[in-house]
């Protein structure tokens, strides 16, 4: 049931992308998002599409697996598209009724926004698909470590993030088990009106909270038993170090961003 959500779930494979330093991938995601929202015209779009296809290809994650993740945001996409379509009053008008307009700019915006969102989800989920949560927080901690100087507890934030991420699958599994245990006693989580549905959540939420608090308690105890005392003086077993491929990746990324910006300046068609 709940296991079927693939959006951003790590997909184990042996590829160049999987082996990249997580900092590179964080940076790449940022560059990709910037490119996605600065590009204009068909040429920039082609470059981004090419890059995305290339990345998916070398990541060895099956395309169908990535697309499955898109299912979760279909509703969001539809709403965005419809709003852009009927609420843009500028451009050549084809049809209007009350506050609703159908214009050339509106159609353009709707298409563009939908493409941007789809690309955004595919691109960012490619990062989480190829990076384990632990690598991700490791990368984040290292990348943000300069902020330590202005007294932002980067280590604590990264630790909280990795614990939170670590607990998601555990809590999902736990929810699954509790749901089954209550369904075995005749509980019904699907039928009924809104109030009945909310009420039917009680037998699910109480055991879940009880167990989450117990787990948090146990974890804190286990960490203290191993002398955890925050980031001060803490070293890593496998410190992150840039390799040759990481440097190449940085070069490719910068080149990619420059290309997208150049394309925006040179060829703006169509607007």
């Amino acid at each position, binding site marked *: 049931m709940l296991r079927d959500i693939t959006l951003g779930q790590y997909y184990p494979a042996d590829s160049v992308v999987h082996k990249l330093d997580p900092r590179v991938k964080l940076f790449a995601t940022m560059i990709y998002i910037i490119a996605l929202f600065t590009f204009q015209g068909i040429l920039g779009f082609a470059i981004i599409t090419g890059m995305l296809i290339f990345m998916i290809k070398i990541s060895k994650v099956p395309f169908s697996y990535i697309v499955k993740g898109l299912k979760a945001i279909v509703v969001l996409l539809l709403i965005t598209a419809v709003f852009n379509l009927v609420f843009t009053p500028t451009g050549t008008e084809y049809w209007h009724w009350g506050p609703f307009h159908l214009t050339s700019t509106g159609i353009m915006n709707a298409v563009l926004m939908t493409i941007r969102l789809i690309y955004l989800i595919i691109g960012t989920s490619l990062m989480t698909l190829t990076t384990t949560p632990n690598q991700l927080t490791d990368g984040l901690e290292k990348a943000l470590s300069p902020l330590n100087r202005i007294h932002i507890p980067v280590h604590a934030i990264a630790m909280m993030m990795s614990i939170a991420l670590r607990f998601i699958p555990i809590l999902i599994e736990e929810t699954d088990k509790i749901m089954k245990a209550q369904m075995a006693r005749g509980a*019904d989580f699907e039928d009924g009106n809104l109030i009945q549905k909310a009420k039917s959540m009680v037998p699910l939420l109480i055991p879940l909270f009880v167990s989450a608090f117990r787990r948090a308690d146990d974890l804190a105890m286990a960490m203290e038993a191993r002398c955890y005392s925050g980031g001060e003086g803490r070293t890593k077993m496998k410190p992150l170090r840039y390799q040759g491929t990481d440097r190449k990746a940085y070069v490719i990324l910068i080149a990619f961003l420059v290309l997208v910006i150049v394309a925006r300046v040179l060829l703006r068609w169509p607007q």
Partner: protein
Amino acid sequence: MAEIILDKINYTYSDGTAYEIQALKDVNLQIHQGEFIGIIGHTGSGKSTLTQLLNGLLRASSGSIYVDGQDIYDEGYDMKALRSKVGLVFQYPDHQLFETTCFEDVCFGPKNQGLDRKDIELRAFEALRNVGFPEELFYQPPFDLSGGQKRRVAIAGVLAMKPDVLILDEPTAGLDPAGRDEILGLVSKMHRELGITILLVSHSMEDVAEYVDRIIVMNHGAVMFDALPKQVFAHYKELEAVGLAAPQVTYLVHELAERGLPVDTQATTAREAAQTILSALREKNVI
């Protein structure tokens, strides 16, 4: 009264992804009314999956399950009715206790069956009595109880729905030896007195040897043995090879037989072993 037939059941987790695991392979089983069956297998052998298929919480990837001659995968089959017929008690009672008092918690099942308040309370009361739960704890919150008492409340919670078949998934996990014996004794008593079919899932032969009249051994998602305890334990060497062990007395009587004492190697319980050893010694005029 329930008669369950499993026909060529296959089950695959996360079908079509990188995490694909085949949990059950071509499982054929027949469970008769009133049987007391032990399902044994080590972690990951598919025994928990099997139990969840039996009351429709999971749907088999292929194959059919017939309960009282009806295919439970037929369209319009009443799954809710199946779940009151085949009761399943999960391993950890913490996964189901949620009400403010033990009594209210046990009422949850019958309430979902749509009974009226009087019947619900009657059933809850009866179920708690049947599991030997002390009356002074009836109106205490279930969260502060000991492991053994929590387990009793959890079993009562399912028993209150009056199932024909009761499946217990590792009911002794995490209990001390005394608590373990109490729960197993209780299960055996329920089988005798209430006449319900019981499926006891466990990874310990010792747990089940004394009580059940049929053992199903699961290994890598397939049924490895399905026979009387004596017959299954006769294969104790094969059981060892798959990471399971026969009860200690099986080893003892085999060892004694090898050393020339004419004992009956089919003894599975401590009492039987003691008897056969005594009679063998008498035969040899040692005592």
